[in-house]
């Protein structure tokens, strides 16, 4: 099955970017568990562009520590951010996160830890496929977004350091 193959390749590539990655059943309870486990203690800011079935987040949203409408202060002090992603890239282990009316963009860039939720059916083979009509119903052609490939990193201070202006930790949950 080509789908499974893409997921396997995605998992391997994502791991090689030093992101952590797991597969989780397409189920709101399972997703809730996985999200809480990887988020750890403290408040979680959640933003979704509707790219992953919103019903799957219904259980997660009920948690008290999950903030869907953050205040300015909450945004300024964010430590853990959860967003959906509209596609994944098998060859590079990247997730594509929208920058639009919802807060996916800032939530995934201001936070220390970013957890991205990806539907396994939206994985495409290569980065360039995001710019083709054939894939994803052309979604990649009609929006602002970022390919996120591993945590933020720099070699400017000498050795490679992870966690600069963007998150030092990236966790990817692939729904299967």
């Amino acid at each position, binding site marked *: 099955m080509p789908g499974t193959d893409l997921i396997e390749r995605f998992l391997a590539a994502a791991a090689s970017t030093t992101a952590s990655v797991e597969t989780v059943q397409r189920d709101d309870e399972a997703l809730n568990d996985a999200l809480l486990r990887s988020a750890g203690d403290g408040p979680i800011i959640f933003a979704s562009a509707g790219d992953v079935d919103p019903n799957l987040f219904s259980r997660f949203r009920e948690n008290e520590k999950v903030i869907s409408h953050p205040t*300015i202060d909450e945004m300024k002090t964010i430590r853990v951010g959860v967003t959906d992603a509209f596609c994944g890239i098998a060859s590079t282990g990247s997730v594509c996160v929208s920058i639009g009316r919802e807060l996916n963009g800032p939530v995934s860039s201001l936070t220390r830890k970013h957890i991205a939720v990806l539907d396994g059916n939206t994985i495409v083979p290569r980065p360039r496929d995001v710019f083709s009509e054939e894939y994803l119903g052309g979604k*990649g052609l009609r929006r602002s977004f*970022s390919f*996120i*490939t591993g945590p933020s990193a720099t070699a400017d201070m000498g*050795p490679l350091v992870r966690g*600069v202006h*963007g998150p030092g930790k990236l966790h990817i949950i692939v729904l299967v």
Partner: protein
Amino acid sequence: MRDNYPDEIHPREVANKSSKESLQKAIRMALRIESDALRLNTQTFNANRYTAVGKLEDYEELKDRAREIKESSIRNLPDLIERLTRAVESRGGRVFLAKTKKEATDYIQSVCQSSGARLVVKAKSITSEEIGINHVLQDVGIEVAETDLAEFILQVSNEQPSHIVAPAIHRSRERISKLFKEHFKTEKSLDTGEELTEFARDILREKFLAADVGITGANLVSADEGTILLVESEGNIRLTTQLPAVHIAIAGIEKIIPSRKNFGTFIELLAASGTGQPLSSYTNILEPPLDLPVLNLNGREDTKREFHLVLLDNGRMKMREDPDLKEALYCVRCSACMNVCATFQAVGGHAFGGECYTGGIGGAWTVGTTGKLEDGRFAELCTGCTRCVPNCPVRIDIPRLNTVIKERLMKSEGGASLEKRFFGNFSAMAKFASLAPTLSNWINNLSASRTILENVASVDKRRKLPSFSKKTLVREYEEYRKKNAPPFGSQAMPRRLVLFADVFTNYQNAKVGMATVRVFEKLDLPITLSKVMDDGRSAQSQGLLDSARKSAVRLAVYLKKLIDDGVDIIVAEPSVLSMFRLDYGRLLDAEGVFSALKSHTFDPVEWLNGFADRNSDFANRLESRMKPAARPPEIFYHAHCQMKTIGAGTAAPEFFRRLGLKVETSNVECCGMAGSFGYKKEYYDISKNIGRDLGRQIEKSIQSNASVIVLASGTSCREQIHGELSRNVQHPIELIDELL
């Protein structure tokens, strides 16, 4: 601030290379202070690039497509600018086409002032360095915070970038620690990469949260949707474009491509060619003004996002009309040509670069954007080794651009200097000297004549001059033929063989030429010798293009006739072979002549190896032809830079492995001698610095096996290695001659 530039020279003071003195000072500073960090960092990028492009299955096709897109974009530029303007304006953004730096900075200043900005956060942008926006804003009381960590370092130390992708690549961790400790006078420990990063991040996070305006560059801009591509790894571009309500992007007009779909061709190519990654951490595809609500984390009450795209001409339209410099407009600023370049690895962009553009491609960009030829003087540091050519994702002939700049600079400064004429006319000089080689060699190395040479022609006294063969190849060959009839030849031989008597082999390396003749004939492959003719290499390397072209045309006519008669041409000197297979494409007008030369000229070992590939009989007999030896030799082989570029660099190791021998190969891109480069007084130190890199590798090999045989195909590579290690270095064909 002098911080860790203890001596008199700070990089900023010698950023402009219009005078020869500033170029010399910059070289001295870079070799003394920056070289070690540069070599380590560029070589890491370089190795990662080879790995990353190796994983791109259709790397060559992607490069072709990228080149096509860029060519057609530059061709249709006026139309693309119009379409882009409509696209951005239809979404509520503004486009400002700035003809000059001043127009660009005036516009940006007025946008910042009218939005009441006190603090601007800025992402890395070489184009913003080109217009000098920071000083303009600071002069009117607006603080500018560079948020890319490398740019942050440079802002602290007041230096210009030394590399277009990693602008502080010349600084080791130790030198950054020292700088920060002196500058920030903090109690915090700043002794590891993590500590330094955390420290800078905390300072900059405050700036991000307070900023009024964000300024970025753009890797590419698509005309159809006004989409900008911004590649980064730290996440500062994401914050710069999303936090403040006002975003200003500065892009040279050459960054425009027709369609957003075209990004697909570039994103993997850029990441692989630049930092050697499958993709950088963040590849941002933005259609500003963004839909994202204004966040007002800075405490303002902005209600609407604003976007201003500043398109910069500043000489680019003129470059577009220039038949030579136009090619530089295709550059996508990936930095592959810097990381692969042996000169750059040694001195970096503070010497091999100007006020903002660096490396091999930097000369054309500096000249194009400042309009002053002399600002591109650092193009002299391009040795023409060609290692950048196959590694450029848009296939720019970078050494050619530098040759053109050298030529124009020379003409503008009153014609060829004695030095250029000396190095550029090797053929005539060699002919004269060879009339009495022993006398010439003696005079050559007299201290008095060396002083004259150094003063008149800038030939460094410390270099041993290449000596002339006692007899020319032509004479040796005549004597050999008198005693040896050609063998009958093998049925399988596809074409007849002629050894080209290039000027280097004829006058200086007759023994290499004769070894070639003997090896072929020992293997029953008859070979004859051509006339001696100049190929134009020496003239070209001095920027004497007219003279190079004349030689090329004369020689091409002669060789083409031989090829038409069914001959393969064997060329023992790699730099000459590379003329036929690479440079003649530009020097000759006739495409047909070039393609004949390209497919029928060979390095001797390359020809033998190819013949063995196609002819199993011949291959099988090879090992048995070897003289019985007590112990088979082990080999260290350094492939000549241009041989690698034309695809002939792996033939010798393969052939020796066929003979059952063990071969280790060097991984330095170029020996640093590069023809005449290493002889010049001005560049002697750079050349030796590069040579030491190769020397160290060979020494390591010798340590594990003292009797290792060192081989190099290029005359100048052999001289360089000999100078480093005082060890005998042979052309591979000479060893084969001994083995058969």
